């Protein structure tokens, strides 16, 4: 698959192979009335295999950056303006993430009491993201 250059928008690169589809799911559908290029399992000198996504006329907010890093810690985001790379972002995994993740322990108090803001301790283990709910201590593993 050929990935075309974009004029304005974002390029999500160095995505862990196969999880690009999960990343596309992060963007609400109304934001996606734009041209998207999505390539999966392409060769990368750094990662072996990677996914890459280009979306035209789209921006990312800080909360989305955190979500992107949680799904694929290796991700890089380039902001493209007038055909030029305006900014290249390598989002950091913050030690504690608030209000972004939902606990996957069905008995967790944060699911029942909606006023509570979820809080997770986040760290990397064997280059996989681990997240621990600070309420119920349930540990979830993602990519």
């Amino acid at each position, binding site marked *: 698959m050929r990935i075309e250059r974009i004029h304005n928008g974002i390029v999500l690169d160095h995505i862990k192979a196969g999880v690009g589809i999960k990343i596309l799911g992060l963007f609400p559908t109304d934001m996606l009335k734009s041209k998207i290029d999505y390539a999966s399992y392409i060769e990368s000198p750094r990662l072996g295999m990677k996914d890459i996504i280009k979306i035209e006329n789209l921006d990312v907010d800080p909360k989305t950056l955190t979500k992107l890093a949680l799904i694929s810690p290796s991700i890089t985001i380039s902001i493209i303006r007038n055909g030029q790379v305006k900014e290249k972002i390598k989002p950091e995994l913050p030690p504690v993430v608030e209000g972004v993740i939902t606990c996957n322990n069905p008995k967790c*108090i944060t699911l029942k009491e909606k006023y509570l803001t979820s809080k997770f301790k986040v760290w990397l283990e064997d280059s996989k993201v681990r997240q621990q709910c600070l309420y*119920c201590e349930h540990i979830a593993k993602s990519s």
Partner: protein
Amino acid sequence: MHQFQGRHIIDTADLTTEEVMFLIETADRIEAMGPAARDLCKGKILATLFWEPSTRTRLSFEAAMYRLGGNVIGFSEAMSSSVSKGETLADTIQTVALYSDIIAMRHPGEGSALAASMSSRVPIINGGDGAHLHPTQTLGDCYTLIMEKGRLKGLKVGFLGDLLFGRTVHTLVRLLARFGVELHFFAPEGLNIPDYVRDSLVKAGATFTEQTELDARLPELDVLYVTRIQKERFFSEEEYLRKKNSYSITRETLEKAKDDILILHPLPRNEEIAMEVDPTPNAGYFRQAEYGLKMRMALISLCLGVLS
């Protein structure tokens, strides 16, 4: 000096080993005070908020407060209270904190005690949050071991039964590991300690073994902590009946063990310990419930600041 006044008791992991020892000393101190302890909490109110029933734990908290001369308010069924009308945990806690000086709670939501402490101006004592933590049971058990065995370091403690779902065991073993207790687990296939407990024991450098059969190691044990085995954890009735017997304690079991082996159980028991064991000096489970009560008296007194 240890600062407990105004503090919430959510998780034993929040306590240093020195603080745990201080709690045990305080329980002893209250015992030594005799009748004078009956005035310690005069004029104070404990609220027991039990969103899920646990008669034993609730009675233990209430008896502890009455023995300290205080009063008790509370509910034990969420169905009959405003909670069933959709009130948030934060609102319930904020309101009850206006009526009381300290709150003991049990709630099925895991992490609920921590969440409650964020909305409370009075100390919250976690009386069990789902299958997560049960610190007052753990501290009472720790007190039992010290009183009955005189030490923790080097003690060989066995845990028998369903160790996968038994939250009492999960919190207790992590605390005991910090005190240098040797841990031995005996559970049916598939019901051994969960991975996260095993991981934390490995990380803590604890000495522990895991096996399905009790027999080989039984003669070395100083203490055997027995837990309930529930029928619904097994594939079939036959399997349950077959396994049940190898995880229950009789006088015959005691004959193969050290003379002074201490048998504990968080209660209530089903058939894991035969009643014929009750009259032996090895049966520590009722004394254990008494130590639990004393520990709750110590926690209430310290968190209220009537002792320091």
